[in-house]
């Protein structure tokens, strides 16, 4: 199997951008980061199979290599899962905006177990 430098660099770049965006407090950035990193993984899956003519019986002539259909099936599943998670993240970002009027997740909180905590308990 030969390696494809352009594909490898694209995957690496997508991963780097995606992970960087996911480190943010802003949920929309997290969503965009997840989409980029998700595409990086999908490309990685695509790269894991071999190329060739469509894997349909009767299409390939003798000695012609067929494309491996399994990675494509895996990618399809992964895209569907990505859709579900993106929908949830969007809903969560919107809800967060409704509650806080800010695009970001609040810094600290009125966490019930922190407020009025035990002075001897030694929390932060």
């Amino acid at each position, binding site marked *: 199997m030969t390696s494809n430098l352009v594909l490898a660099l694209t995957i690496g770049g997508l991963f780097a951008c995606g992970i960087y965006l996911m480190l943010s407090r802003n949920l929309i950035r997290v969503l965009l980061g997840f989409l980029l990193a998700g595409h*990086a993984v999908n490309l990685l899956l695509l790269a894991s199979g071999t190329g060739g003519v469509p894997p349909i019986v009767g299409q390939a002539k003798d000695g012609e290599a067929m494309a491996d259909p399994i990675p494509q099936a895996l990618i399809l599943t992964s895209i569907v899962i990505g859709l579900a998670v993106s929908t949830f993240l969007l809903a969560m970002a919107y809800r967060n905006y409704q*509650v806080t009027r800010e695009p970001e997740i609040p810094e600290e909180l009125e*966490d*019930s*177990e922190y407020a009025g905590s*035990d002075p001897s*308990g030694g*929390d932060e």
Partner: protein
Amino acid sequence: MNWLLPLAVILPLAGAGVTLVASRRPRVQRVISVGVLATQLLVELIMLLQVTANGTMVMHVGGWTAPFGITLVADELAAFMLVVSTIVALTVLVYAISQGMADGSETPETPVSIFHPTFLILATGVTNAFLAGDLFNLFVSFEILLTASYVLLTIGGTRERLRAGAPYIVVSLLSSLIFLAAIAMIYAATGTVNMADLSVKLPQVAPGIVATLQAMLLVAFGVKAAVFPMSAWLPDSYPSAPAPATAVFAGLLTKVGIYAIIRVQTLLFPPGSFGTLLMIAALLTMLVGILGAIAQSGIKRILSFTLVSHIGYMLFGIALASETGLGASIYYVAHHILVQAALFLGAGMIERVAGTTVLARIGGLAAAAPVLAILFFIPAMNLAGVPPLSGFLGKVGLFEAGVQDGRVLALILVAGGALTSLLTLYAIVRVWGRAFWRPVPEVIDPEDERDALQTESGRPLAVRRRAQQEAQRRVASEEAARLPVGMVGATTAIVAVGLLMTFAAGPIYALTDQAAANLMNRSVYVDAVLNSGVPSPPGATGEDGGP
């Protein structure tokens, strides 16, 4: 009997669909979801009996034989985990229903209709994860249960839950990406994702590549199991969720991660590889977790940290890679699922009775709510490993395996485990002593106290405080008397099953040892998957493969 395997997955999934359709009829929803989980438990009990009697059960979905199609596999480990997890899911569901969370009375804006479908989808994901025979199916089940857990964790969409849910969600997404990337690389290296097939093919791959793949999988599962360097998300996100959600997460989600680690360590990779690293991670998980628990001041946070800490014990048994170690580890997983879920359910009742779980504000619950006191005391002592309870038996098994192993690091781990056990006792006794035994704390509210000091000092203040204490105790007793039967009953049931782990320790240990023996001898699993079904020449596909 192989049709039992898909049935265990389909039942909760179909239940989720029906409850979603019946979203305007809460009573129908309740009946369906309890009925579905009870039926599932029955199916899994039959499955466990079958597996122990006739060996590993394999189902090739759609008739496609092993390396090509989707395979569902139930060996002793999977069947045993299924039974324990469904017991927890069922009791927690009953608890949630009677608490009223499922009906939306906890917070006014909680969406009434989505609790039952989401909970059942979570159960589907957990079941499918235990039965998955290939890595990609395992990934899909992880996604199913994680997406359901995102919804349960942020249910109601309050500010606090969104805040607590965000880190959990981002960390989980990242670990899923790592897992999927690992699957892609494994496929590139071997051309298969079926675990039995991988078990045969991975040894032919260069050792350096195998180590990389193993490291990626261990990181992905380590995040889910909350192993030390990747555990910080857990105590931050769990305490804010509603009590039933926390209980089911604590019981099941981290343990699915542990299950995945057991599976890949025993089936895919060279025996004992990464052992030293896993042992160090186990030691740090135990110690850092329990020190965190000691520093906390809220019951739910303390419990979250003990949860992290005790993951270390399970990892210890896995790292030893011996039959005794694995057997004890599996026993410990089952014990810990039951005990930790019971404790979180107990914490939920404390919150209801005392109005808070902050230790500084509660006290005197032993007098006000004696039943609750007993229901909290038994799993608390069990968690700390007080003999003769199952926590003690599990730890003894692990220590025995550690001493048998004989390496210096294993002996250090035994010492670390004993220390962690004592510190757990300290942390949990602190909860018990403050919440249940001491009188109601004097200073309830700083503002109240300031008012009192401003008005006058001396006798009237003391009188006032005593009156306040008295009033608080009365309120707590009344609340305790009004605890719904379902909550108390569900917690009693789960505590009782936890005690069964002690009384039936002999047969259960025999079962887990058998499971460990089969895991150590990987040909049992591989033969069951690759040589079952229609004997067909390699490369041949199944027939049409209709459902």
